[in-house]
């Protein structure tokens, strides 16, 4: 177990190092920050002075060295645009994104697994068909379409929900649903299919034969084995959710990490962008590690030595 953890951590570190190098050089290849940040048509002299002011005229390798040594001393830099610590900016915005993520995750698991079970058990009657139909629509609808349609119905026409912002928990309802929709649909599909797979296995017949009630057969014996693909898909979806967050936060004007990273990309705000990409990469690395560990917890046949 320890050996596994050490190796995985080293592997994750290597991934992060590659990310740091790639993001540093890729952002700079994409253009000069001052071409995007300053008002269009500002005089060339001022632009040159600003480039010097931020040290962007120094050789790339030197800038990289400063960045890396800064990283190790806990200094990730100052935003070129906002002129304040990158850490402060992320600290301000992280709670909103974490909240959005948590709501979406809980929503999709709490609804997705039972719906998947119901779809499997009712696979030969209309209920199962209806659940799967809804799941397919949820999966196939692009989330910006879903977002706009929901805003149109619940804000513009019915005036039930606020359309944008993050002042109250109610403001998070629509964004969470939009963010959860594709993940929910995936979980329903995978839970159903995995369950169908195990339902026909011999050991379930044995369980029923020894007199266990049907719900216990499903929950204790079937679901546990069906859980592995479901956990995998949740892990993959969490990584995908980061990307979807960008869009959801933009449409609902939620001040979160996604919105920040997009804005930083457009402005070429290197320090903010670099930290954001590293943060997201770290999140994905941690989630995939947790998923691997969960396999072992769920299925005793999986040993964490590989």
């Amino acid at each position: 177990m320890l050996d596994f953890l050490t190796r995985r951590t080293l592997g994750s570190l290597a991934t992060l190092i590659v990310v740091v190098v790639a993001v540093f050089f890729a952002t700079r290849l994409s253009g000069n920050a001052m071409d995007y940040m300053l008002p269009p048509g500002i005089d060339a002299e001022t632009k040159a002075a600003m480039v010097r002011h931020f040290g962007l005229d120094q050789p790339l390798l030197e800038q990289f060295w400063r960045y890396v040594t800064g990283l190790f001393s806990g200094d990730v830099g100052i935003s070129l645009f906002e002129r304040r610590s990158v850490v402060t900016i992320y600290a301000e915005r992280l709670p909103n994104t974490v909240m959005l993520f948590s709501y979406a995750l809980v929503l999709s698991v709490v609804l997705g697994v039972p719906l998947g079970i119901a779809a499997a058990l009712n696979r030969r009657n209309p209920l199962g068909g209806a659940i799967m139909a809804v799941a397919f629509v949820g999966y196939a609808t692009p989330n910006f379409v879903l977002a706009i349609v929901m805003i149109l119905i619940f804000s513009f026409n019915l005036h039930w929900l606020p359309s944008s912002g993050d002042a109250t928990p109610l403001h998070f309802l629509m964004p969470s649903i939009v963010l959860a929709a594709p993940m929910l649909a995936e979980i329903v599909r995978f839970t159903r299919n995995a369950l169908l797979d195990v339902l026909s296995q011999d050991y379930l017949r044995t369980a029923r034969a020894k007199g266990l009630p049907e719900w216990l057969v499903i929950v204790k014996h079937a679901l546990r084995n069906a859980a592995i693909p479901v956990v995998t898909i949740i892990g993959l979806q969490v990584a995908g959710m980061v990307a979807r967050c960008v869009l959801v936060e933009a449409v609902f004007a939620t001040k979160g990490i996604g919105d920040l990273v997009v804005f930083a990309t457009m402005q070429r705000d290197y320090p903010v962008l670099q930290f954001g990409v590293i943060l997201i990469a770290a999140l994905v690395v941690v989630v995939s590690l947790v998923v691997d560990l969960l396999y072992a917890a769920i299925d005793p046949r999986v040993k964490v030595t590989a």
Partner: protein
Amino acid sequence: MHKTLLIALATTTMLVAPSHALDLKVAVQNLPATLDPGKDHSNTGSQIYYNAFDPLIEKDYAADKVTFKPGIATEWKQVEPTVFEVKLRDGVKFHNGATVTAEDVVFSFERIINEATPEFGSVKKQFFNNFEKVEAVDATTVRFTTFKPEPLFETLLNTSEGSIVPKAYIAGLSGDPAVVEPSDFDAFGLAPVGTGPYSIQNFQPGEGLTYVKFADYWGDMAPLDSAELRRIPEMATRITALANGEVDLITNVPPDQLATIEANPNLKVEGAVTPLFHVVFFNTENPKMADKRVRQALSMAIDRNLLNEALWLGKAVVPSTHTYPQYGELYMPELNTFEYNPEKAKELLKEAGFEGQTVRYDTDPVYYTNGLLAAQAIKEMWAAVGVTMDLKVDPKWTGDDKDMESRNWSNPMYFADPAGSFGTMWSPTGARITGGSWKPNEAYTEMWERFRYSTDIATRKAAYAEIMAYVKDEAPVLVLYQPYESYGMTKSLEWKPLPGHIPYVLDFRAGAVAFND
């Protein structure tokens, strides 16, 4: 007796006091990341400063005609052609409680003149290049000295760039509290303090801020208790927030969305043409664009009235030259600098041997309202005279690039004089000339000297006419139109952009805004 008076006074106050707090909620398309009027002349920054900062000299913004009036300065006079003195108002308070001193006034200008950071340098170049020094004569008198006689003193001391800021507060923000360092200005941009009728609270860079009524304001009290601004970048989301009652006022409504808002019985639209021009300019230094006949032809091929009808519902203003009514006596609509003449355009292209060529045209996808649509229409207009447009859509500013051929841009009026709009972009020290896309001749520099520093209106008008005639012949730039800026709001709100302001100012001062419910 005293008691009776007090009770009477209390009762009157209660009667006068509004029954509920007046809070305005505004959704804007964009907000600046830092707030310092002295180093910012961006379109996003222009929205913000006037509510929280005061210039030395004020102006009647509701009037078309320029009338200056006392601000932080109660009186001012030109003691010599190059010396200007202002008397400061007593007891003007900053939002942090400090009193405005002559030292604060000197500091507010010195940081620009001495280029405390490159951004101040940029403002100096556009506004205060003629200012040599600023000094305190005594506790209430400040003297400005210029290199050359300055006909625009009042105009320049009325700009938001010339707003008064607190020296001691700024110096104390970072590092040594006794010394003003560049990092102090970064910190001030995040926690700005001015003297205006509203203080700025809860500023979240690029995202939101709250104006709160400043009880110690020296002038007319703010009509609102607070005004909350937040950024909603998506236009559809802004309109929904307005329709849903989440906000009272939204900015940047494109013309094709006006009908949606007007159809809602609870909402209305206000708007005005903005003192800003959308322009097309050419890189005369690129060999391909070097022949002025080509540039003249490409300008003449553009039917600006058709663009106005199609993209702005006819609400924009298509000018004959680079001029605004706000210039007062220097408003010169009689000049004929830009014209539509596709037949002449074809002839010129034939003469220049330019038929069948391709010209690159760059535009940002969203920065200028209708910018991309206009580019697509211009592509057809150029095709009609035999030139193919290679349209490049990119948010990168390409105006200074050697291989740039043509692109769009905006020319805002920074202050109400040709020097504050055409001059900041196109004078010999303007951004386009230093950016290298046009190299006018020596005579042009002489015309500008005469125009900029003469104190005689007739001489200035004659010089500007010469400048425009030269621009017409050289054709480095074509003014498309003055865009019509629209705002959506709830029916109960009384607000509209005032004609005396520079573009985009959200003025919530006394007399400029009210709720009528």
